[in-house]
């Protein structure tokens, strides 16, 4: 069974047609539990997200700030396995029909087996992968497997990426381009700086792929700001915080997640 790269493309195209940015939500699988995570991601999509990224919790998340590290720790202590992440993708997609991506460090994919991971993710209805520590130079084996199984390969670009390198990365990527708004790890920030827009502009000069901005966006106001210049807005840590602050009260956490998705969905529609 082929993966859902085309579904991802059409959802992004639809947002463009509606003259708005797409809203992409992130949560790690297995947080607070595997089933709780599935419910939370379903709420995110029902509440207004267009696309969801399922994080594969990792023991050594070098690109994540304290909020996602905490969520990953909870998931790992709960015994999350890679097969549970695949199940999360399957059930969230089945419940919502939305494009579901997996965001993971490379070692778990390497350990699972590149071909097997791509096949299982596609079979579960996944739309693709974001692999933040797999640079384009090391990505050929994955890209072959992804293309064969109908999965998108979303590369991350950073403010430090020079123009020639941006062209090389976007030529290899599919689905969309993940533009990191700042130089830093995941986490909420007070503001989204000028360098995000500069990066989006420089990225667009190299590709027709949609460019979505992540890192630091946490509220409707920031989402609206980013929506002015990007094709999509990616929010992760702010969703994780809603579940963390609910402190075990899963229903309160889910209500918070759904409410945040709704606020952000309004934000991405405020294009002037």
């Amino acid at each position, binding site marked *: 069974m082929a993966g859902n790269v085309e579904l991802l493309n059409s959802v992004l195209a639809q947002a463009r047609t509606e003259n708005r940015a797409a809203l992409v939500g992130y949560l790690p699988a297995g947080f607070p539990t595997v089933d709780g995570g599935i419910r939370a991601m379903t709420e995110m999509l029902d509440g207004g997200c267009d696309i969801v990224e399922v994080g594969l919790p990792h023991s*050594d998340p*070098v690109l994540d700030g304290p909020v996602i*590290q905490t969520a990953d720790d909870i998931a790992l202590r709960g015994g999350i396995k890679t097969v549970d992440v695949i199940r999360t993708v399957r059930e969230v997609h089945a419940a919502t029909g939305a494009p579901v991506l997996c965001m993971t460090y490379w070692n778990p994919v390497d350990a699972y087996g590149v071909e097997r991971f791509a096949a299982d993710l596609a079979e579960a209805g996944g739309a693709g992968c974001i692999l933040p520590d797999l640079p384009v130079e*090391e990505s050929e084996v994955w890209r072959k497997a992804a293309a064969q199984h109908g999965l998108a390969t979303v590369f991350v670009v*950073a403010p*430090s*990426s*020079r123009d020639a390198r941006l062209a090389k990365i976007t030529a290899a990527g599919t689905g969309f381009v993940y533009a*990191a708004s700042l*130089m830093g790890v995941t986490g909420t920030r007070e503001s989204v700086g000028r360098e995000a827009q500069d990066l989006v502009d420089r990225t667009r000069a190299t590709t027709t792929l949609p460019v979505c901005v992540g890192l630091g966006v946490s509220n409707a106001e920031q989402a609206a700001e980013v929506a002015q210049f990007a094709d999509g807005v990616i929010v992760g840590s702010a969703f994780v915080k809603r579940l963390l602050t609910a402190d075990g009260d899963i229903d309160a956490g889910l209500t918070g997640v759904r409410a945040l998705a709704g606020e952000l969905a309004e934000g991405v529609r405020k294009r002037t």
Partner: protein
Amino acid sequence: MSSEFFLPDPEGQVPSPSGYFGAFGGKFIPEALVAAVDEVAAEYEKAKADPAFAAELDDLLVNYTGRPSALTEVPRFAEHAGGARVFLKREDLNHTGSHKINNVLGQALLTKRMGKTRVIAETGAGQHGVATATACALFGLECTIYMGEVDTKRQALNVARMRMLGAEVIAVKSGSRTLKDAINEAFRDWVANVDRTHYLFGTVAGPHPFPALVRDFHRVIGVEARRQILQRAGRLPDAALACVGGGSNAIGLFHAFLGDEGVRLIGCEPGGHGIETGEHAATLTEGTPGILHGSRSYVLQDEDGQITEPYSISAGLDYPGIGPEHAYLKDTGRAEYRAVTDDEAMRALRLLSQTEGIIPAIESAHALAGALEAGRELGPDGLLLVNLSGRGDKDMDTAARYFGLYDDKGEADVNGAVQPTGEGEK
């Protein structure tokens, strides 16, 4: 190149241009760091071609570090090694007390050449942190050292040394709170502050070019030792031994002997409480290929690719990864790797102290324990070269608790050092 002490690999055969030693190495890093890592690689290539760089580094290695380091024969210790002759390469006599200064001075010069004003580093036992803090004091660079919280306790003396030298020391409280977590946190800092910051990586792991770059700065160990032992013993050793955590002192020793087929290269890994207990950090003995901290090598991990928490009494070896060139040397069979338990290492530490008046670091004691075993295998005709990578001053609290050397254990417990779990005499 007329440099006497800065000796980049003349073979130039490994790694490949993309940083691979056979199937191991590479560059698995976030896009945000690609430009910085490429800058380090480019600056290093320029530095290698610049006689002024070699001249400045040579001057520092001679007049600041104290190179060449001595080669000491240890006959009373060797009586316990089957009567084989044993020579120690005395990297413990370098300024700051270990081999780490060789690499640090080289990278500090690179930092200046790149125009960066801030240095960050990880440290396990604190030796790399102390060496880095030292070089930053010498060159007027801002310095932040990441150290696992467990290690800040068992190596409290080195924390004080780093702070005395003007460095900021940050105790890392995530994960196993040891070396691996210190590296994670240093990477997070680097991503956020890369414009003005160099990550002065302390071992032969990490993304390309660090495995080759750090190795090159340590090659002097083996080149000197090879020349010294030929002069003193009239022949090459039967085996060269070193401890391996990330693998920097071992690669520094081994590299000069790669072409000497008669010289066995033996890396001594931290066996902790014993391989069978699962509480160890013997990555090449028990690990499987995977990616950690930017390169493909052997890794201690579960079937899902989650890194497992290592254990060793030695903070400097307590690491679930290993430099990719060691993985390559293991798979090609050129080097062999053995696990040495905490207890074997601690017995060797005391033995060298009491037979030769040299207190080694617990890290280096793993290599000494390996030499005792190798000597017994070789017998009286054997000739062994051991890298004494560091001195044991920093380990006196751990050793005192292990052997019960304090008069009043309660009174001596001033810094909350972790309790040893081994017994002195098993």
